[in-house]
């Protein structure tokens, strides 16, 4: 009797401690997000000091900037509002989308190797993009300008979505989706897509080859408010749905059968997760190319830090993913200024060693 109450008390204090840690985690992450935005706003090939930033923000909000400003201030305002700000907002949105997508995929597949690419989006999108780059000029009415602004992103988005639906169709029998089949079919599809891209590379000319390379490395260089407007609703949909999915995903971590017997609509959750992730990652590939490693590093890091409860894990993944991409992009446009480094190189350069360190400092092996 007395030992039972002792255990209950221990449990209570454990839960309370975890809650405190979670609250603290959210607070810290929120501060880091704000800090990273300020850092990103003030860094770039054109130097804009925090004081300048403040002055610009004030003059923009006052709505009477043109009168007394110096030309330097005018240029800085243009750079800040039309180039740097959309880029940062896009990085925030895509980082959040990629981070959450990674967590959702790892939770759904109950596999730490799963990342958003696993549902075939990245390979499908990359193949469609390569097809467009190499063969797009044969389509009547597609001139080079239209190709880069509309045709290429659209092709990537549709390619990613098609690949996902194809995989989903393969893995679904009698209304039940087998995540194991989807995982394996995803690997096969990725190999197939890579082979087709190899074929396209073979028949491509010098410039097309460079375009394919840059596409597969990802970049936020072409960010503008139109792209933000396209991406925002889809990312909002994903982020808005996560609180509804969190409980179901927690149950799913016990196994599909157990979750089903707990009364969780397993099949609906699977379908919703796959469709949302396909949409979010598809649109991110469409506007910025394939950006790797965010979706795999972020969930792992957070799971080690705050545990596996999806109710905290999902929103935190959004915040941490956003921070990672905003910082990586700030480095991308500063480190080789006035040129731009593809951001995929940076996320892999930061993410790879960090991930290895994470694995090394664990004192036991991970079961897949």
């Amino acid at each position: 009797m007395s030992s039972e109450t002792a255990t209950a008390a221990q449990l209570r204090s454990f839960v309370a401690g975890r809650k405190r840690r979670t609250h603290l985690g959210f607070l810290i992450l929120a501060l880091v997000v704000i800090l990273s935005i300020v850092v990103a706003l003030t860094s770039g090939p054109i130097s804009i000091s925090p004081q300048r930033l403040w002055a610009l923000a004030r003059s923009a909000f006052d709505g009477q900037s043109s009168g007394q400003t110096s030309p330097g201030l005018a240029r800085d305002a243009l750079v800040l509002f039309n180039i740097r700000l959309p880029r940062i907002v896009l990085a925030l949105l895509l980082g959040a989308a990629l981070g959450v997508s990674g967590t959702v995929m790892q939770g759904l597949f109950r596999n730490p190797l799963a990342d958003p690419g696993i549902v075939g989006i990245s390979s499908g999108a990359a193949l469609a993009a390569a097809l467009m780059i190499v063969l797009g000029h044969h389509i009547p009415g597609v001139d080079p300008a239209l190709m880069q602004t509309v045709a290429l992103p659209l092709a990537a988005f549709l390619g990613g979505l098609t690949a996902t639906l194809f995989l989903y169709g393969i893995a679904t029998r009698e209304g039940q989706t087998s995540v194991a089949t989807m995982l394996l079919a995803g690997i096969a599809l990725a190999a197939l897509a890579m082979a087709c891209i190899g074929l396209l590379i073979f028949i491509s000319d010098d410039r097309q080859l460079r375009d394919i390379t840059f596409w597969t490395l990802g970049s936020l260089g072409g960010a503008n408010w139109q792209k933000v407007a396209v991406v925002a609703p889809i990312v909002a949909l994903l982020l808005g749905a996560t609180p509804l999915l969190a409980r179901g995903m927690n149950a799913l971590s016990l196994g599909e059968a157990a979750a089903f017997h707990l009364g969780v609509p397993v099949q609906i959750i699977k379908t919703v997760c796959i469709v949302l992730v396909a949409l979010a990652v598809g649109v991110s590939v469409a506007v910025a190319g394939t950006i790797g490693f965010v979706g795999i590093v972020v969930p792992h890091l957070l799971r080690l830090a705050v545990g596996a409860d999806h109710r905290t894990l999902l929103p935190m993944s959004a915040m941490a993913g956003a921070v990672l991409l905003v910082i990586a992009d700030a480095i991308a446009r500063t480190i080789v200024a006035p040129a731009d480094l593809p951001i995929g190189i940076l996320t892999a350069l930061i993410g790879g060693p960090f991930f290895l360190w994470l694995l090394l400092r664990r004192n036991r092996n991970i079961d897949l």
Partner: protein
Amino acid sequence: MLQAIGWAFSNGRRARRARNMLPLALLCAACAPALAAGQQRIVSVGGSITEIIYALGAQDRIVAVDTTSLYPAEALRTKPNVGYLRQLSAEGVLSQTPTLMIAAEGAGPADTLGLLKSAGLRVMLLDEQPSARSVIDKIDEIGRLLDLQQPAQELSAKVRKEFEDLDARRKTIAKRLRVMVILGFQNGRAMAAGRKTAADAMIALAGGINAAGAMDNYKQLSDEAIIDAAPDAVVMAQRGDDDVLPASIFDQGAFKATPAAATHNLIQMNANYLLGFGPRTAQAAQDLMLRLYPAMSPAKPATKP
């Protein structure tokens, strides 16, 4: 920070209106002093464009170049580099406070060009075909843009004359050689230039026949394809000073069996000089021609058109 956010909410609509009007207002403010000073600040994107601006003696107006601006070597050494011409960064270009960007057709991405134009930068895209016509037009166009019509006309007249001499000289060639241009080796296999390449145009200018003319673009050739192409001469386009050991090329299986190996006819030329299609192209074509047909006298041809 929080204060600023509060501000943003309360003044949202006004702020939005201000932001929309901002670019227009800024444009005039940003351009006025530059025009008054009368000094152009040019971002030059594209190897041949940078070369032409240097040839016109206007290099002081260049504030930044791209990674393809290899000649003169001084350009990339002394000027900031805005990256590869297909992957420009809007903020990077603007950070050089340019008044004009002259770029080869195909520069981009399109979104970046859009941003640059909306920032009030004058962006000129120039045709980039591997032909004599295109080189001459480019020189004249750049002369107009830089308000250096006189020196540009002199340069383009000189280049046109060189091309005409080249044409006359080419007519004296009795038997055209089959020429293969190799851009280096990948995994031990030669990357040869097919049709639709600058190298193909160069071979034609120099009075040769492209031995790899059965294919398009730059591709790796199999051993059998090399033997089938039967080049009389192999031209190595060298990217740097290093590169492969060219002497050994005729010891390799496939090249051993070509007519070029029999005469050890290997010509090495700098890739940018050979394929750049800038103001030195006629000279490069003549160099290549003289090395292909050594019997030809380096002096000017007797018959003038």
